[in-house]
């Protein structure tokens, strides 16, 4: 019984991690149809902000993770949109390549600035016991954050004016503009939101994985694959793809090694895209967002 509980907890935790990894990229892809390959580096920046704020500025850890990291990375994301992405609208491949260049440059900058011995932050929550087993209490926190983020995004899109304009722009930008929404401002705010979510993800995961300059490279492939697999709907797509991939990868990891879990995730992605070329929400849950 304990074993089943631990097992399920870890699966949900894996799904939550994938959600946090991908939601920022999904927001930007769903809204503007661009793939931001610097997404992993935004997460790395969020991690560094959290770590440096906690250690050097002595900001309480919860504030650095939940407030400072998303805010600073969100602002940086808006800056990137203004300087870089704005000139490349409509050119999906070129945006991918430009953001890839940005990602290499950011990794290089982080290596030069922070080098290789940055102190990490240790998990602020104690372990919890389920029967005879210990597991990470912090994992519960990750799940909670993922749930809050998804609910928050849903509420944002469903109930606010910004959400309404954003959904309209997603469906038909020109019409929305004709009706008075300002696409430029919407894109700018969406980029900021996507970056902020990435920063939050990086900061929340920092106590578990540490922060090194090459962190982004390990995240970007999984996030990219989850977002494309999910399709263009932001919340439903990310949730369904993350659930599927997270479940498969964690189950396989349990019965063999983390490497086979990774391979299983990648194989599942290949099969999914072959069967559903537009992603999950290209075919199911079409009307959802």
């Amino acid at each position, binding site marked *: 019984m304990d*074993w089943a509980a*631990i*097992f399920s907890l*870890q699966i949900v*935790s*894996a799904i939550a991690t994938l959600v946090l990894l991908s939601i920022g990229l999904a927001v930007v892809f769903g809204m503007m149809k661009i793939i931001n390959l610097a997404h992993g580096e935004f997460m790395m920046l969020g991690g560094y902000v959290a770590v440096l704020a906690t250690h050097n500025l002595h900001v309480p850890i919860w504030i650095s993770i939940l407030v400072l990291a998303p805010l600073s990375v969100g602002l940086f994301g808006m800056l990137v949109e203004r300087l870089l992405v704005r000139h490349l609208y409509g050119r999906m491949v070129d945006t991918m390549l430009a953001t890839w260049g940005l990602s290499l440059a950011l990794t*290089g900058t982080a*290596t030069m600035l922070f*080098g*290789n*011995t*940055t*102190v*990490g*932050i*240790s*998990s602020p*929550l*104690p*372990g*919890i*016991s389920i029967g*005879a*087993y*210990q*597991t*990470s*209490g*912090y*994992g519960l926190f990750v799940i909670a954050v993922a749930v809050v983020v998804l609910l928050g995004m849903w509420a944002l899109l469903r109930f606010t004016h910004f959400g309404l304009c954003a959904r309209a722009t997603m469906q038909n930008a020109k019409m929305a503009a004709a009706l008075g929404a300002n696409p430029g401002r919407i894109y700018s705010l969406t980029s900021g939101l996507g970056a902020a979510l990435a920063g939050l993800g990086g900061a929340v995961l920092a*106590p*578990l*994985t*540490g922060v*090194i*300059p*090459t962190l982004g490279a*390990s995240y970007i492939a999984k996030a990219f694959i989850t977002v494309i697999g999910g399709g263009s709907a932001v919340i439903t797509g990310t949730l369904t793809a993350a659930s599927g991939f997270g479940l498969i990868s*964690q189950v396989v*990891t*349990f019965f063999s*090694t*983390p*490497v086979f*879990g990774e391979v299983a995730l990648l194989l599942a992605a290949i099969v999914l895209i072959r069967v559903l070329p537009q992603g999950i929400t290209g075919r199911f849950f079409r009307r959802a967002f």
Partner: protein
Amino acid sequence: MAMNRRAFLRTSAISAAALSTLSLKSFSAFAAEDAINIASLYDNSGGLDIYGKPIVDALTFAVEELNSGGGLLGRPLNLIKYDTQSNMQLYAQYAQQAALKDRAAVVHAGITSASREVVRPVLDRYKTLYFYNNQYEGGVCDRNFFGTGVTPGQTVEKLVSHVTKKWGKKVYIVAADYNYGQIVTAWVKKYVEQAGGQSVGIEFFPLDVTNFGATISKIQEAKPDFVWSALVGGAHMSFYRQWKAAGMTGKLPIASTTFAGGNEHIVLSSEESNGILICQNYVQELATPQNQAFVERFHKRFGADYPYITELAMGAYQGMMLWAEGVRQAGTVERMAVIESLEKGISLELPSGKVSVDPATHHCVLDVHIAEVRDRRLEVIESFAQQGPSDTAAVCNLVKNPRDAKQYSIAL
């Protein structure tokens, strides 16, 4: 295609800049005509850079010390540093460059065994002396090669016997998935079984894995008395973080011969690393007067807030000093002469203790210490003086077979 003036100017400017980079002068420091070239090939970026930086600093320090003493044979030393960016192709390229273009008198290179085995054949072929200063799995038998790091025969046996007495006889092994991790695991298993114990589980992780949640649950299910970690690299540090997050620190002890080589005890918090037992040739906290003087000089050069002088860094320093002594005794930097003078069994008192070259294996006889991690320091618990490279000696005898040039796998 019509091109307006703005586009023309922009294109020509960028093209000119791009083409001019092809003619960049080499960055190698301009050296005096009679300087002795020494090359170092280590990763200062990419995933393995946590090991590289202290090593390069130690080599720089060693060269500066030698130069301030008048150089070698009256000639200054010129250290040419290459950053291999955790990329095997660059290891091969820079090894060729060091041998053919710089005509280095000695090359200090390689962190992982993978990089060593890329560099070694190149340096063998172009007849350039090679010093490998890291702890590794043992077995390299090559007259052109000198290994100054510890091998499992020197450290693993001592640590296993200590912890099986202290903690119990059932071990769960987590190791990096490449030949070093595989071979150390085989050694640990052998020594644990010799002590009357057993390994209740073994898992291997490639160097970029950060997801250890399932493993931690599996460890608990197997109920070992202690965990042996042969994890390597920045990504694997997340094991210790997740271990603490699951509340396992303090409930199940960990022993390791790789921990602390990459400053893990500095990067991780005390709660995450306290209590881990390691066994190494060198810890910065060694209380000998020579070591304390060394640390003081090192801190004067690099700052008192220098994170830590790792065992790998000291290995590099010791390798440089041994080579320098070989040169002095040979009276020349010519490769065979230096090799022959080192084979006479050169011995030096260095910060880690007495270090001697073993002529038959080209490895070193070293002191080893068992230490416990406490509040980001390594406190020495037990020391063993002058451990010989017994594992390599079982398969390698360069006195009898001087033409040997390969790595043997040591049958267990």
